[in-house]
């Protein structure tokens, strides 16, 4: 496989290999000299057409620790704001001799489209409401480090599912690794057509947080993506919190060793209470450090070896 566009493209063996390498990369974070020479002479460009702090800096650190030359381009202030098409922008940077293209774009399918235009390795860092594969990999990796094998373990994903690419990638990744997934959202934020999809993919849906939480071995809270909402999904922030937020009261009903994940950025007080975000069982910061390890692993496997025919 040449690119990382979707979790769907990965076999269970691929995921295992990425995790094994990530575990080695994780150790590099604790070293004094955080540098491996594997991608010396390779150039990676991060093209972020949407705002991002953690994903972009995570990819940047990952590339730099592997000795790649990393360049960041953001949508704002780039030539796209002068009216250049996405195709022209990516062809332009690839003409400079770029080996890897990490792309985040507001349009679902943007990464796959770009991969058909360029020779460089394309890594999807989030495309619209479609997928965010490295986030799903780092989430599953973080959970495995806490729980051991995910086979048969019950993971609850709660929040704004309609706008969440994290949820779409995570459902695929977790079910591939054998976890039982229950997704919970208010009816207005449950994706349309989820019933037939959940039957195919083998996950459950629910509208009732309080019945799901006590059974969960891990819980993943998703951000309410207000920037993607034009209003009308729920009456007020307070009402969302009462119905679907991980409040202090709900935290008490969770299994005491069940990890709490959040892909960030967190809206404290909205989908997750400060007590839950800072609880001993919260793995939010583990997710961030795992993110660097997973992205190092992905960059290494896609860019270090000989060019394979896709």
């Amino acid at each position, binding site marked *: 496989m040449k690119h990382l566009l979707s979790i769907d493209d990965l076999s269970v*063996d691929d995921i295992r290999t990425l995790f094994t*390498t990530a575990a*080695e990369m994780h150790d590099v974070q604790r070293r004094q000299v955080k540098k491996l020479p594997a991608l010396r002479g390779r150039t990676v460009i991060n093209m972020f057409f949407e705002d991002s702090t953690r994903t972009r800096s995570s990819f940047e650190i990952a590339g730099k620790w*592997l000795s790649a030359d990393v360049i960041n381009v953001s949508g704002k202030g780039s030539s796209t704001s002068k009216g250049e098409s996405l195709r022209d922008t990516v062809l332009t940077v690839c003409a400079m001799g770029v080996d890897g293209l990490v792309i985040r774009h507001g349009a679902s399918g943007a990464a796959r489209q770009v991969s058909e235009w360029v020779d460089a390795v394309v890594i999807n860092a989030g495309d619209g409401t479609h997928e965010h594969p490295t986030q799903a990999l780092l989430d599953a990796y973080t959970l495995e480090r806490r729980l051991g094998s995910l086979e048969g373990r019950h993971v609850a994903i709660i929040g704004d599912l309609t706008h969440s690419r994290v949820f779409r990638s995570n459902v695929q990744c977790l079910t591939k690794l054998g976890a039982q997934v229950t997704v919970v959202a208010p009816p207005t934020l449950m994706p349309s057509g989820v019933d037939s999809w959940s039957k195919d993919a083998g996950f459950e849906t629910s509208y009732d947080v309080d019945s799901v939480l006590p059974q969960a071995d891990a819980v993943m809270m998703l951000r309410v993506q207000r920037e993607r909402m034009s209003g009308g999904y729920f009456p007020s922030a307070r009402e969302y919190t009462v119905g679907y937020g991980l409040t202090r009261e709900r935290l008490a009903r969770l299994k005491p060793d069940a990890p709490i994940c959040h892909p960030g950025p967190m809206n404290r007080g909205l989908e997750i209470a400060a007590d839950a975000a800072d609880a001993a069982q919260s793995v939010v910061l583990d997710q961030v450090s795992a993110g660097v390890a997973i992205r190092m692993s992905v960059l290494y*496997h896609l860019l*270090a*070896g000989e060019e394979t025919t896709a």
Partner: protein
Amino acid sequence: MPAQTGAQTDPVQGRVVLDARDISRALSRISHEILERNKGPEDLVLLGLPTRGVPLARRIAEKIAAVEGIEVAVGALDVTMYRDDLRANPTRSPHKTDIPPAGIDGKTVVLVDDVLFSGRTIRAALDALGDLGRPATVRLAVLVDRGHRELPIRADHVGKNLPSARSERVGVRLAEIDGRDEVVISDANGGVA
């Protein structure tokens, strides 16, 4: 996508040049040489190069413990990311690097590998060591030196010098990984040399 780690040697036929007892004797001698050279077991760190250098390093540590009654530090040093032929091969998954908690700064590090051939693995290992710390001394112990060096590198402790043709294959099997101990030499096609 990623290539799987293939650590198994091919089931080659071939001529056995060292059997289990020869290997044990060679490792005993290497253990004594290491102690003699270091004037004792102080500040020794044995780092095996995956895959087969790691069990060899452990065996040497056991033999040193039997002689001196002291457990010397043993670890593993993976050099995959430091290889100069990374670009020429499908991506290999790195093995575990395991540096003893006391570190390598100021220590006498003995790198342990099964076969010394081109010397490129050792070159990579020296680079990897440089990123982990600054040993006082680095030495090299190998079970088999088969010649054909491509770099100015030599071993300090050698189990057996095995003159070989470049096209021949030298296979080391160890009980921990392959179920039995032997060193086999075969022609390029895996037949008896």
